[in-house]
């Protein structure tokens, strides 16, 4: 299986490198001394294994390092990202972070493959399109709360259920931040057979959960409405965002604040009591402003109470910052090094860490170091 996967992955990279160089399959076939274009097509589709000499010729012809074709964790030419980032964050900073995130995701995919964790052939998807109404998006979210058995406070088990029931890994990561406070909130990464959600673990709790629900929408609707490579996470830009993002926001609001939970937690006699409502927002792990708009859209609140609730401060909660990456990812990484599938130094490089930092990561997840320093 792994050999077949490698062949397939090498094929992706050959195609990406050829297209990036602006070469036709005919031209590459000629440069490699192959008999016809079909041979190149077979290599790119993973149907034909490359011979060592052919790989060297290919590397020379397309002026790419051999490692580009052989790197286990390379996702170039495959991974598509949609980032939720501050407008002030420079494009090249985002590109640099995308390369780093690509290594994490490539490593994650390889670890899943090694554990025979095959992607579900029946990929989960929400039956929505860009023409769907906000009410449709909200209805899907309400149904998903029931289907995933998320309970009264959906935020609490959302990440776990997304990973286990929807087969979409969720990684909590440290992202970049400029001195002016510009940063990345989260992202969805789309590969042919896997979606991954990245969340900035340092964000305030309510924003983290909202981003998670928002990115879940993208992961479940990617094929029907591919999001832009970059979207703003700025509150000021909220009114200008595209319809797909508005659908995602409505979905996220309903997922974290389903009507059943609101009925259960809100004392309707105190519907104008912003102190009570801010307490409910804290219980649901959402921002008061998010609850204000959700209740206003449900016509439970008037404009005055909505505005007053939106001004309420976030109540502190005790969930704390999530551990880096995810327990399942770090467990798989640990097993892989411990079993001798993966060199600790190679793992450290892919994680963008030193060996000492890798030991610290395992310790954070209560795991002993699987190698000696």
């Amino acid at each position, binding site marked *: 299986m792994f050999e077949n996967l490698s062949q397939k992955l090498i094929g992706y990279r050959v195609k990406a490198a050829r297209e990036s160089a602006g070469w036709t399959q005919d031209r590459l076939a000629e440069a490699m001394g192959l008999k016809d274009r079909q041979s190149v097509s077979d290599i790119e589709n993973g149907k034909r294994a490359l011979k060592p000499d052919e790989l060297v010729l290919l590397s020379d012809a397309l002026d790419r390092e051999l490692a580009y074709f052989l790197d286990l964790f390379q996702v170039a030419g495959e991974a598509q990202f949609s980032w939720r980032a501050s407008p002030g964050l420079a494009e090249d900073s985002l590109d640099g972070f995308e390369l780093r995130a690509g290594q994490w995701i490539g490593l994650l995919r390889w670890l899943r493959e090694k554990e025979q964790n095959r992607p579900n052939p029946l990929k989960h998807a929400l039956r929505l399109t860009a023409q769907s109404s906000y009410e449709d998006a909200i209805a899907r979210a309400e149904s998903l709360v029931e289907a995933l058995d998320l309970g009264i406070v959906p935020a609490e088990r959302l990440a776990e259920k997304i990973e286990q029931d929807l087969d979409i890994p969720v990684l909590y990561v440290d992202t970049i931040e400029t001195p002016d406070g510009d940063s990345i909130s989260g992202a969805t990464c789309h590969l042919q057979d896997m979606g991954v959600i990245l969340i900035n673990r340092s964000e305030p709790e309510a924003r983290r959960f909202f981003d998670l629900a928002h990115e879940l929408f993208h992961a479940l609707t990617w094929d029907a409405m591919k999001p832009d490579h970059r979207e703003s996470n700025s509150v000021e830009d909220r009114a200008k965002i595209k319809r797909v993002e508005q659908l995602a926001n409505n979905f996220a609001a309903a997922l974290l604040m389903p009507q059943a939970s609101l009925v259960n937690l809100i004392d309707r006699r105190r519907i104008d009591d912003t102190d009570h409502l801010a307490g409910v927002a804290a219980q649901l792990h959402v921002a008061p402003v998010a609850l204000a708009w959700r209740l206003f859209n449900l016509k439970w609140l008037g404009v005055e109470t909505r505005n007053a609730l939106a001004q309420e401060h976030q109540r502190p909660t005790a969930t704390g910052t999530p551990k880096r990456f995810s327990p399942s990812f770090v467990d798989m990484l640990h097993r892989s090094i411990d079993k001798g599938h993966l*060199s600790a130094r190679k793992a450290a490089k892919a994680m963008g860490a030193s060996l000492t930092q890798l030991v610290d990561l395992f310790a954070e997840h209560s795991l002993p170091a699987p190698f000696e320093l």
Partner: protein
Amino acid sequence: MVKTRVFIDTNILIEAFRTGCWTAICNKFAIETVDKCVEEALTGNPEDPGHIHIDGDVLLEGLAARHEVGNRELANLVLSHPSCHGLDDGELHLLAWLHTQNLLPDALVLLSTADKAAIVATGNIGWLDSLTSLEHLAQESGVTHGQVNALARHYRADWLNEIRLKIRLGVIP
């Protein structure tokens, strides 16, 4: 008397310097490595608390040979032994050179590294019996007990034997 050729990777090289065994083992054995391992040994992060300074002149003087590894050797190894994909560069280059030269398993000795993947990959190629430990080399070279005792656990004969046994029994990989 002709010295036995010994091929070592970056971790072994650094540990030999850390414990002061380097000169003694170079006198006793013909120590060889590849360019990538030399590069890795000389370019570690000086800010790392565990960083060991390697004197480049002493390193190169001690080596009986260093070998350049090209794309062809790397492609040959990785395409014929996919488990080598999981190795770090230094380990990969060393195995690629040995694979192309067709020197193992007869008579030559290859040292194992600190984590298990290199041992597993070496076993997959069929060279498990070619591995030996830095402890063994150090003892053969007549270094002091203190230097042998200073070796970290994974450079010891017992550690290598334990991992080798686990591979043979199928406990790992």
